[in-house]
């Protein structure tokens, strides 16, 4: 099951510790604890092998999800910059004027 095609391999891979991994590992761990609670077992202490397995699966899926997200954002950025490069007239830089030029002269009436 290939999420990221070949061109995405020139991007830097995400770190082992990344947001999606941590979150999904937490989701997996809570799933295992909820399973324990529903079977009337002590949630934290029982079935440590199940908690470890669920957290590991979550971490693994999170890593590949982060990799796919990085590739998607890189592809969108590349396409957007390519479009801007090909249509310079639509993206001409606006001339900047200071406030002193815009504001009318002030004559106080006291």
């Amino acid at each position: 099951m290939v999420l990221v095609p070949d061109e995405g391999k020139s991007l830097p891979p995400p770190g082992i510790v990344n947001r999606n991994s941590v979150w999904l590992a937490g989701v997996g761990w809570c799933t295992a604890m909820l399973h324990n609670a529903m079977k009337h077992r002590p949630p934290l202490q029982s079935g440590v092998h199940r908690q470890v397995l669920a957290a590991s699966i979550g971490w693994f899926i999170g890593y590949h999800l982060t990799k796919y997200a990085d590739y998607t954002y890189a592809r969108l950025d590349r396409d957007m910059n390519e479009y801007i490069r090909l249509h310079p007239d639509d993206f001409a830089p606006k001339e900047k004027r200071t406030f002193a030029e815009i504001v009318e002269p002030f004559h106080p009436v006291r």
Partner: protein
Amino acid sequence: MDFKTVVDLPGRVIDRCGGSSRGEMTLSVLLSRAGLVSRVGSRSMFTSSKPDTANPNWLRVGLSFGTSAFLWGLLFKQHSTYMHEYKVRNGLV
């Protein structure tokens, strides 16, 4: 007439009390005994056992930890492969 009597035509009694007319081991009693030890797919709630928490299923525990170790190893291996490929493609080796 009691409820165990089998009747063919109204009024004509064919059989009483199950398989035999004798008192000791009727067919229905033998069949019910067999149900207690048969290993057919269905289980009745009177025979299921409580989950035994004192003796863990070590095979399942080993498989779970083994799968976790495999996943972590696979993750580190894939990460190092991706990192190497990135460095090669961008001339950072």
